[in-house]
């Protein structure tokens, strides 16, 4: 007998990091939402390492937070150690990262979902119901059907997942979890193309089997700041991680057994990431490195289970163990679970619009690893956008699209839809040409307006952030409008080895000198309009200082952005026929036809497209007869 479900507006398939964000934000926006996931107990699970944030990823978590997302908040509540990475480098690449308690994270996520009143159904989606290229519902494995007008698919590594441990292969979506079957074929029948990718995870070892004295302890920051603007009173535990090093004996064992590994990229199978490579790849490709670092991280508070960061592998279990034992301190190491690689289906993200809605099927949204990315933060970033836009779709509102100069989230989606993915996509700060503007410290400034427009944050947080932003702007103005006297600053300048000033000078000009900091300005509380006594005082001062120090570069970038804006706004009609343009090279024409760029700006960013292709395109777009032809 067919079970019947209630009708929903939106069904989110998958309770991973993408799915949670999508479902929660839609629910918050008043959409009747159902989260379907294979196992209720695994909702919010962190599949791989026990950490949230990190280089470029920390920036994304903060962006997601301003957009009403929840990852940073959950991470703050389960932090074991918090640290801002890259402190020795420029401030735009400073990135917060939290070592987290994975068990706690999961628990908090599930509790929060319940508290919010979001409906969760345990079940496996096997196909979509689509009529006239529009989503109408989802079929579950038990034969039941859920009627809805929009779906967000966030199936992670589960679609036809295949685990490799040496030559052993297991059908699974994650270690110990069933894989999902049916969705791939269902999407294929709708004309969507998939490929196959792989990724790996290191072994988990027993805490009691490690000689900890031989490792080097690493702690978090003294006064860490939270990932979420909603977190109050952040004072996490500071549990240490320990670093150990591989040596030539480790490497020799691995090299001798390369042939048994599925993660060694020399093999002809689904492609894995070139970054975060398996230990097999590291040893083989970078044989000039005499040793690699292994970080031993606790998976939860005081946990007996330890994550061996840096040792992703799919060698035979025996070989994994043998080679790890050559590491000083791990001589007696015991496994809880070996490292493994997983191979899974993903769908080419160039089949999506910049809203994350499918170009072919209206109402179908996709987010997370299913789009060829890897990483919790990448998943969560897409989840929040897919959730917002699915709700806009249902409410008939304009979708939210972030530009490359708005956010890493914007860079991520723009890259996904325009680049050919042949390895899992991970964010790097170097992917963002406007990196200087996309700081973790100014996510609020960049995104609050959008967030308000779509009602993504609670009133209280919005108010606090608006105040912070306004005070930052006032502070910058103060520094630009006021002079500092030689008497006040010269002593400090001499200490810093900087040239002293003869006449009073604009504070902002002095602050632009690399070594000078805002505290050297000795601004008194009563000089500025109430700024310094306020909420987030340190953050405001830091941000104002940054704005002034980077202003030269950022103004130049803004000019550039203005220049290319024309192209961003130049829309290519959906039915534009590239076959009409005889003068395009076949290669470029094919790319245009496959990707169907929505604007000339997008067309420009497609890999391998030449300036001359764009010139031709512009000529054709301007031809009036062509426009008529489309109508």
């Amino acid at each position: 007998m067919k079970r019947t479900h209630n009708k929903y507006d939106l069904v989110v398939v998958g309770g991973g990091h993408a799915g949670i964000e999508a479902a929660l934000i839609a629910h918050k926006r008043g959409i009747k939402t159902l989260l379907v996931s294979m196992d209720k107990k695994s909702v919010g699970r962190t599949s791989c390492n026990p950490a949230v944030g990190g280089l470029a990823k920390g920036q994304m978590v903060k962006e997601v937070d301003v957009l009403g997302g929840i990852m940073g908040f959950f991470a703050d509540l389960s932090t074991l150690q918090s640290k801002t990475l890259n402190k020795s480098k420029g401030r735009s690449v400073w990135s917060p990262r939290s070592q987290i308690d994975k068990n706690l994270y999961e628990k908090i996520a599930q509790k929060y979902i319940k508290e919010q009143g979001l409906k969760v159904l345990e079940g496996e989606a096997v196909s979509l119901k689509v009529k006239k290229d529009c989503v109408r519902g989802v079929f579950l494995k038990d034969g039941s059907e859920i009627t809805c007008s929009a779906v967000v698919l966030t199936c992670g590594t589960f679609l036809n997942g295949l685990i490799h441990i040496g030559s052993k292969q297991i059908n699974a979506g994650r270690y110990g979890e069933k894989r999902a079957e049916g969705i791939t074929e269902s999407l294929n029948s709708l004309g969507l193309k998939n490929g196959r990718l792989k990724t790996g995870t290191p072994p988990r070892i027993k805490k009691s089997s490690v000689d900890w004295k031989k490792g080097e302890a690493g702690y978090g920051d003294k006064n860490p700041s939270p990932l979420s603007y909603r977190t109050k009173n952040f004072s996490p535990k500071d549990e240490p991680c320990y670093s150990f090093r591989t040596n030539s004996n480790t490497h020799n064992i691995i090299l001798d057994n390369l042939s048994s590994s599925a993660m060694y990229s020399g093999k002809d199978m689904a492609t894995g990431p070139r970054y975060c490579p398996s230990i097999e790849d590291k040893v083989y490709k970078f044989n000039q490195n005499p040793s690699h670092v292994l970080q031993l991280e606790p998976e939860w508070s005081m946990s007996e289970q330890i994550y061996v960061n840096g040792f992703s592998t799919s060698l035979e279990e025996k070989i994994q163990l043998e080679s790890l034992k050559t590491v000083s301190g791990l001589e007696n190491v015991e496994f809880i679970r070996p490292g493994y690689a997983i191979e899974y289906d993903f769908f080419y993200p160039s089949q999506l619009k910049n809203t994350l809605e499918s170009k072919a099927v209206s109402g179908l949204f996709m987010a997370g690893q299913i789009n060829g990315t890897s990483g919790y933060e990448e998943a969560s970033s897409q989840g929040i956008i897919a959730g917002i836009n699915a709700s806009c779709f249902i409410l008939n509102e304009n979708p939210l699209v972030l530009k490359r100069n708005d956010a890493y989230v914007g860079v991520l989606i723009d890259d996904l839809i325009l680049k050919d993915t042949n390895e899992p996509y991970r964010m790097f700060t170097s992917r963002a040409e406007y990196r200087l503007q996309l700081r973790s410290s100014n996510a609020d400034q960049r995104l609050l307006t959008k967030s308000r427009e779509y009602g993504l944050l609670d009133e209280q947080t919005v108010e606090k952030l608006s105040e912070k932003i306004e005070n930052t702007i006032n502070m910058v103005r103060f520094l630009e409008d006021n002079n500092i006297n030689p008497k006040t600053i010269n002593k400090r300048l001499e200490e810093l080895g900087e040239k002293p000033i003869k006449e009073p000078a604009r504070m902002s000009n002095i602050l632009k000198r690399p070594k000078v900091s805002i505290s050297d300005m000795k601004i008194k509380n009563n000089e500025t309009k109430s700024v310094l006594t306020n909420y987030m005082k340190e953050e405001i001062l830091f941000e104002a200082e940054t704005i002034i120090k980077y202003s030269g570069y950022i103004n130049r970038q803004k000019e550039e952005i203005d220049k290319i804006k024309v192209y961003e706004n130049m829309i290519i009609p959906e039915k534009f026929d590239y076959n009409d343009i005889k003068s395009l090279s076949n290669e470029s024409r094919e790319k245009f036809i496959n990707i169907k760029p929505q604007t000339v700006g997008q067309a420009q960013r497609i890999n391998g497209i030449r300036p001359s292709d764009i010139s031709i395109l512009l000529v054709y777009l301007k031809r009036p007869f062509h426009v008529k032809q489309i109508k």
Partner: protein
Amino acid sequence: MAIVACSTPPGVSGIAVVRISGEDAIKNVSTFVKDSPLNKTRPVSKVCFLVDKDGEVFDEAIVTSYISPNSYTGENLVEISCHGNPKIISKIIDLSVDAGSRLAEAGEFTKNAFLNGKLDLSEAEAVASVIHSLSLAGVKAGIKNLRGGLSKEIYSIKSSLISVVANLEFNLDISEEDLQPNLLNNSEKTILDTIKKLDACILSFKETKMFQSGASVVILGPPNAGKSTLFNCLVSKDQSIVTDVEGTTRDVIEKSININGLPILLKDTAGIRESGDDVEKIGVERSFIEAKDADLTIILNDRNLSFEGVKHIHVFNKSDIKSPDEKYDISISAKTGKNVKELKEVVYNSLISDKTNTDTLLTSKRQYNAIKSALKHIKDAYSLLIAEDSMELLVEDINRSIGFLDSITKKTTKDDVLDAVFSSFCVGK
């Protein structure tokens, strides 16, 4: 719509070539070729009779067709090599226009070649410079770029900059893994190297420009030093007025000459001295202006005169009646012609340094400006590196520099950088 034009210089010549390019070129030409062998699938080259509307043969020509995309313009293209009689040429063009083509605008064939991806921008500019070049050497530079010489050089500069960026990006994007030693040292070396290469490009531009549009050489010196006499001697015609009265030459007199194939615009000036005469004052001022813009100044009998940033030769004149009391670069007599030939060599050599890197001849002002901006940013990057300022700003400046080089050749993408990172470093997490 096909376009048509005569692509050999106007006037009576032995053979002229008329080109018709466009989707319909084949059909178009077939209307006035007797028993046309042309077809849309295969290129043809054949001697044919050209016929007018009444079917009357008016010339015998070689008709060559190229099929898209394998042609200069990337479109279907027909070249008619006819007899160089202007009447025949205009008849062919008329017939083609009647059959549906239109007259090509200046440079349109090349523009189409560019639009169709047959030439990159620097190659297209090279074509323009071949067409407009004044000297043989200028043509050579243009042709070299046409074969991608400039692009190649820029590519190599670019790829070394990309490897520097990759180094730095690796450092910025990876925090834990062991950093490569000497990362910054290597960057410093490459950056300095790039500065040198770009400087050489700029120098070569100035020299190419001279070959193409001529160098400006100004004769300076006190009144009666013999400037006008030397001018006349060099142009070998009496152009300037030679008198014993000081300050006779009040206007600047110019004449084109040619030394070893290098076109030179030679200028005679009023001479430099304090003067009460208003008219002469203006003349003196003009001399200064000319001197500052010159590629080279020949300074007669004034060992102490020179202009900052302008090359000069100190010449002692009237060696037939006296000898110099100070050291000059060369002694001549403009009147007797003694040593004037040697002076010409000195002039040529000072204009064309032997360090000229002929591989990177820049041929357009746009390229020159791009290289200049690239150079500026790489120099900024260098100062940041020395000051140990933020690495991301350093990357920003190098990327800008690469961006300007991109405007000469092809675009560098973020993936080029990431590829470089992944291929050289172990990016663990």
